[in-house]
């Protein structure tokens, strides 16, 4: 048993951390948050330049052919730095969908461009409030319906969209978001540093992904892989938020001593540490299962997701409190993590849904 990343993976992580600490300072995050732009294109291009988008794509399709573990360490650093780029949509979701189910032609068409960052993709499942349901329809290769929210849907070049086909069965379709029959609109959200969109399809040309992906189980596999990667983003965020709070309360004095020396504050951080370490350990287990495509990936992914979501919410929330009044200002950075925690917890289904997945999978395994 070996429950740590390899030297090479840790090297990639350190490189990523150094790069992002230079190129993705919180001022970069804020410039997206404060403006109408939906992501930081410059940072995106640099990230593409480092081949992060190509990391887990096979060499035959223009990728580096590395594994998920390398992607996990990158994800942790993207989460830590709150990178305002559509990485999760394009890499964890669209790229993975193509890798899993694309036919040869589709792979040839999309994967090299995804690897090279020439295309940004996303996955469009939801159609409003509640758990995702599918009412969008494809007739004779034309898609109609509304998807909402679509993560990075306003900036992605194409989307993998769930819709009912001519036979009435749910399938996944490749749709060019810049083509005809597509209208899209950026939506306000709790985390404007990562965009969400409403995408209205009105007869948009749609191409069935591969031979057709209809089973809920197959889709669940894609989301499971994304759950592990997102868990790494979440624990990166946790660590960063907790470090922020520790640094601030060590420096700030009240009643003649550092705020961090008060037992109530110390115990708050101890509880954060506990939540983070449990989440980290579950994410590591998820990474193991992901990289070896182990049979318990579904359970491991749900576990990683549930504890990372809990931890990031709790830590980003209590970090604000530990800062006192200043933590509530726009000027301080605490809210960036609190917003991101909300965003990430919603991305591929929320905590309540994942807890139910976890229970189902656990009871199936037991």
């Amino acid at each position: 048993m070996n429950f740590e990343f390899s030297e090479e993976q840790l090297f990639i992580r350190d490189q990523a951390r150094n790069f992002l600490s230079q190129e993705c300072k919180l001022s970069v995050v804020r410039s997206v948050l404060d403006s109408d732009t939906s992501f930081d294109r410059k940072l995106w291009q640099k990230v593409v330049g480092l081949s992060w988008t190509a990391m887990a794509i096979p060499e035959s399709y223009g990728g580096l052919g590395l594994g998920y573990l390398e992607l996990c360490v990158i994800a942790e650093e993207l989460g830590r730095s709150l990178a305002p780029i559509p990485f999760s949509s394009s890499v964890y979701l669209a790229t993975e969908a193509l890798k899993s189910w694309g036919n040869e032609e589709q792979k040839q068409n999309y994967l090299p461009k995804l690897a090279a960052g020439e295309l940004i993709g996303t996955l469009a499942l939801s159609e409003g409030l509640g758990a995702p349901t599918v009412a969008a329809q494809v007739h004779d290769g034309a898609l109609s319906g509304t998807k909402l929210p679509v993560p990075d849907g306003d900036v992605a070049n194409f989307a993998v969209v769930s819709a009912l086909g001519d036979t009435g069965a749910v399938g996944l379709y490749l749709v060019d978001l810049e083509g005809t029959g597509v209208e899209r609109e950026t939506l306000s959200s709790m985390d404007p540093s990562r965009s969400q969109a409403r995408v209205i399809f009105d007869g948009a040309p749609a191409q069935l992904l591969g031979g057709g992906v209809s089973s809920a189980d197959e889709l669940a596999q894609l989301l499971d892989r994304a759950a592990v990667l997102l868990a790494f983003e979440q624990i990166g965020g946790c660590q960063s938020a907790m470090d922020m709070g520790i640094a601030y309360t060590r420096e700030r004095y009240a009643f003649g001593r550092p705020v961090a020396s008060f037992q109530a504050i110390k115990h708050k951080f101890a509880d954060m540490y506990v939540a983070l370490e449990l989440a980290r350990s579950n994410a590591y287990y998820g990474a193991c299962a992901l990289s070896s495509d182990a049979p318990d990936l579904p359970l491991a992914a749900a576990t990683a997701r549930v504890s990372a979501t809990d931890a990031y919410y709790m830590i980003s929330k209590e970090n604000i409190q530990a800062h006192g009044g200043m933590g509530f200002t726009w000027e301080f950075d605490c809210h960036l993590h609190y917003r991101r925690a909300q965003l990430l917890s919603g991305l591929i289904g929320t905590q309540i849904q994942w807890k139910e997945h976890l229970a189902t999978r656990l009871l199936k395994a037991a």
Partner: protein
Amino acid sequence: MDFQDTPELADFRQQVRTWLDANATRRTDNGHIGMEGEQANHEAKDWYKKKAEAGFACLTWPKEYGGAGLTSLHEVVWTQEVENFKTRDAQFIIGIGNCGPAILHFANEEAKRELLPRMASAEDVWCQLFSEPNAGSDVAGLRTRAELDGDNWKINGQKIWTSGAQYSDYGVVLTRTDPTISKYRGLTLFMIDMRQSGVEVRPIKQMDGGQHFNEVFFHDAIVPDSFRLGEIGGGWNGALTILMSERLAISGIQPTGFPQFLDLVTTLELNGKPIAEDPIVRDRLAAWYSQWAGLQSTNKRMLTAVAKGGIAGAEASLGKLVGAVMNQEIANFVCQILGPAGVIQDDTISPAHAHFQQTVLFSPGVRLAGGTDEVMRNIIAEQVLGLPQEPRADKGMAFQDIPTSSG
């Protein structure tokens, strides 16, 4: 034990109801009235004036100071009735609820007769200036200096988290008049004219994007000695009086998020099914309702005690602590049940005009304003339960010698 008004209160309630029906518009939904902006302020001033003219302003203050000379129970009746109407009744509650009692306690007769009626009718708007960037939970650690200069005091320093400073005519400000003695003994309380040139108000942008609070900078601002409240060096006791009033004032309007949650549970369907049928929703609903109902009834017990001549104690901290945490947890829970669209903050998509998303972002401030969770627990432990204080690192030190982050 009963839920009935006394005949006198029943009478008063009828009077209030009649007057409100004639002078205000009934509320039709649970929606809240925006609290910010100039327009809101004007509307509120008009409303306060109308109330004052009808004799419904500051019900518990003596008549000679612009009040109605009634009891807290009359105030409760007013509050219960006015909730059914669209008014801006709560607009100046912090100024009136905090500064009013300070002036009632500490100002001279002339100042009371001049200033309080204008405060009650909102002709003058007041703010409270205590917190500082380096004096949050440790309020008495403040550094704003007041130095005697002839018959006047010269104020220099910075305050923060001042609600309504931008539209205030006066403020009550806590200052340090002697840094060479212990921190609690070197403080003095003043009234201050906020419209003078040495006072600069800068809004603070909050994490939710709103601008409810301000920073206030004093550069040689002038206060006549007649505006001093209480003794030189007696500011801390005055401040405690005010902080207690603040918690009481807040305990009435403390958001808990529960009524909005209940409203949502009874109306929302997700995936074609009422969320009221979801066992997880019901489980949380029961837990939060039992807390919320407990707060309502605790308030009733406090008012009963007050009506019987007791004084409300630090128990109000309980409502602040429980309500603020519940408010945040409810909002987060609702965003979770909404699924991936829970993160969307859009009037046309998010239920209840995106109330819950707004609350996710605003609620951290509610937990901080008026004292953090930790401050509330300290107050309960020390002032209600009488548990011993912690050893104090700054005990017996001159203020200027106490270790600080910047020093």
